[in-house]
């Protein structure tokens, strides 16, 4: 069933691409290409890029490691209040990032809910100004994306395939490793990508909760915001272009099927080309 889509659909898709893409084109058009090299060559920029890479990757990793079990529980374990937990998982998306940062203080700050426990148990005095704090802030806003995507993927999985594996002698972990996760791979990749992207662009919760410390918590978005505040819009734009370039390379580089479930059926167009 793949024939040339109706013109209306194509037109709407075009408008959508315009809405999402034109601002980027505008950004590129206004980019001060001559001074770009200078800005990007600055040690501070490279440092921010490094912090961004570390923080976003760590946040994505945390999101996957904690989010996968949570998604599994939400998808597979019927319990009272499941709808509530699922809604709570979405809340960090709704919270303005600044409030998110403040809420993180209330939980993990010195006087927060488990602040004392952190202090006594792990010797963590304060997370402000630490990369760990930046990672926590980024993971807080990024994890929901992974959880939602992974849960949807898990639910879409045919559980009979897992049963079939069990009847062939596969234990719980073998089923997970050889059947569930590979079948889920597209959803996991999509979720990890979404949460990585969200963590990479994260600004409000990070600057609030972890502060803006060069080399430790100053990520590219923080550096961009500061350049903007400091009256260096060119530098801000140059760094934004850097951020975009890095993202594009990563996103295009990921084999594009990762962003979408692996084909289980032949690409429809192979079977039914348009006349």
């Amino acid at each position, binding site marked *: 069933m793949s024939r040339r889509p109706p013109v209306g659909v194509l037109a709407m898709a075009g408008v959508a691409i315009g809405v999402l893409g034109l601002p980027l084109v505008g950004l590129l058009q206004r980019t001060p290409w001559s001074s770009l090299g200078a800005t990007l060559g600055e040690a501070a920029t490279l440092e921010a890029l490094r912090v961004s890479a570390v923080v976003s990757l760590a946040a994505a990793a945390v999101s996957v490691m904690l989010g996968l079990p949570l998604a599994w529980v939400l998808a597979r374990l019927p319990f009272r209040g499941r709808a509530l937990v699922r809604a709570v998982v979405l809340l960090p998306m709704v919270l303005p990032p600044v409030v998110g940062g403040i809420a993180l203080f209330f939980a993990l700050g010195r006087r927060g809910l488990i602040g004392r426990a952190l202090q006594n148990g792990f010797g963590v005095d*304060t997370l402000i*100004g630490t990369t760990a704090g930046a990672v926590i802030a980024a993971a807080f806003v990024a994890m929901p994306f992974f959880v939602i995507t992974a849960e949807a993927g898990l639910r879409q999985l045919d559980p009979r395939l897992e049963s079939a594996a069990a009847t062939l002698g596969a234990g719980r972990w073998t089923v997970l490793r050889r059947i569930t996760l590979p079948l889920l791979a597209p959803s996991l990749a999509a979720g990890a990508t979404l949460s990585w992207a969200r963590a990479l662009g994260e600004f409000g919760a990070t600057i*609030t909760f972890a*502060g803006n*410390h060069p080399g430790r918590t100053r990520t590219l978005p923080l550096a961009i915001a*500061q350049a903007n*505040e*400091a*009256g260096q819009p060119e530098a801000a734009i140059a760094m934004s272009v850097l951020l975009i370039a890095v993202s594009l390379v990563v996103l295009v580089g990921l084999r594009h099927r990762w962003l979408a479930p692996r084909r289980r059926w032949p690409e429809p167009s192979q079977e039914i080309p348009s006349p």
Partner: protein
Amino acid sequence: GGAGETTVAVYAAASLSEAFEDLAARYEAANPDVEVRLNFAGSARLAAQIGAGARADVFASANGATMGRVAAEGRTAAPPALFARNRLALVVPAGNPGAVTGLRDLSDDSLVLAVCAPEVPCGALARAVLADAGVDADADTAETSVRAVLTKVMLGEADAGLVYATDVAAGGDKVAAVPLGPQTRFNDYPVAAVSDRAVAAHFMDFVLGPDGRRILSDHGFGTP
């Protein structure tokens, strides 16, 4: 300085970032065994971080009220001191497409006008100045930061904006200032040591001292 045997953590309002980067450099040059660690963000954010127990030594706020709250919570080690003063400026995009000549023109509703929200100092200042001039201006946007006002003017998206005098230079040739005449209202910036470490008081003295004043005035700040 050196391997940074001592560090001083300075939390400064974002609008002070250029001035404080210079201050820090000069301070480190004069005190080679001290490393200045800067943290720039909006005053309210910094106050929240200090309230949450951040290891800050010095807090420079763009906002007297915010400093007042930090002091009221007992987080300051010494009473705050005012160290810089800022005036209001009226900026228009280069070429002045809205043909703005003074505050009076701001009552024109067809102009896109950007000011700060009345709850933040630059907004309070703008509102007071407008009231003094008897101008009934309907702002199209009430920004929570001066730089956001400046950005809109620089991009030509706003026809006029009310910002601090120190911001005009940051607009470069993309903005032009419209003279406002003599002013009687200002916004004064307080600074306070928030830790009782000696280096905190030392840095604060530096800011309030002659070197500090010179650097601040280089960046367009007045003296309270």
